[in-house]
């Protein structure tokens, strides 16, 4: 039952999926900013060169992912949705579509999921964000 409970938790599953992807494809990298660190211990142990924790620095996190993409990697960039997109909005806009490179931005706690955590941890505008490809 314990195992079932863990797998049903999306952040636990995300950590496992990312570790699998890192193992399958040498171009995949993971960039995060402290958030969810406990779900990435396995990925970090197995692939230390392609898993980077930048500390509590979300602007840097997004641009580190973009910089990796400029060298041909496919970064997965993760934090809570509000810090990933709303705080680092220009980094997302200029780091990825404006440079013409791709990545996978994974926000945790979308919309009102973090209901008990308050406004600071809710990403109420995230789901309606669209970035043009120009």
């Amino acid at each position, binding site marked *: 039952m314990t195992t079932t409970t863990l797998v049903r938790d999306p952040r636990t599953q995300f950590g496992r999926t990312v570790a699998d992807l890192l193992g399958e494809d040498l171009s995949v990298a993971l960039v995060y900013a402290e958030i969810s660190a406990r779900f990435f211990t396995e990925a970090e142990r197995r692939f230390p060169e392609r898993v980077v924790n930048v500390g509590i620095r979300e602007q840097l996190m997004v641009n*580190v992912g973009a*910089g990796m993409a400029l060298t041909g990697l496919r970064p997965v960039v993760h934090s809570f949705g509000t810090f990933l997109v709303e705080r680092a909005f*220009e980094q997302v806009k*200029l780091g990825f579509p404006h440079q013409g490179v791709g990545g996978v931005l994974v926000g945790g706690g979308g919309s009102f999921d973090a209901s008990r955590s308050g406004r600071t941890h809710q990403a109420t505008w995230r789901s309606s964000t669209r970035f043009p490809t120009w």
Partner: protein
Amino acid sequence: VDNIQRLLTLMTGDEKHDPASYSTLDVLRVLYERVLDVSPETVDDPRRDRFLLSKGHGPMAYYAVLCDRGFIPESWLREWGSFDSHLGYHPDRNLVPGVEISSGSLGHGLPLGVGSALGLRAQGIDSRVVVLVGDAELDEGSNHEALELAPALALDRLTAVVVDNRSSSYAVPGRIAERFSTEGWQVATVDGRDHDALETALSERGVGVPNAVVVTVLDQELAA
């Protein structure tokens, strides 16, 4: 007349040059002529050295150097900034061969450079990443996130070139070098007009730490 001066004049239309463009000219020349391992033939080679112009405003010197080195045709310079031109007031990597990042908004180049250095290291590629920022650009807090992380991750392939023409409103003499040094970077301060000193400083790579080269340029000299 020096070829680069001639190329600059194709864009500026006369002998006067705006300081934002001109302050970077000497360091750009030294980088492309003597330091960086990149050429028109290797712009897509994964093993090329990367030069990231973070301070994307006033790019005439950059365009002139890229043209002089054969990355872009001279005909592009005459039409720069016009409707159909590849050369805008801020460089676009998707339009200009040899341009590594599209810049203009300040404070993005150094963080992108940290990411590029990590990406190259992860792939076992020993290329350098050289990022040019302005002294006033360091006002942007995003730079300081990068400034702290690069030495923590021992990114010794990364070089920050700070062109210091005292354009920051709250400049404190010597603070830029001290800041980088405090965070663990190897730091050199050089006269921005001395090509041999620039070559020596820019050819350095720290061992286990990134290096910063503070290039001092005085606009009064530039106007002379």
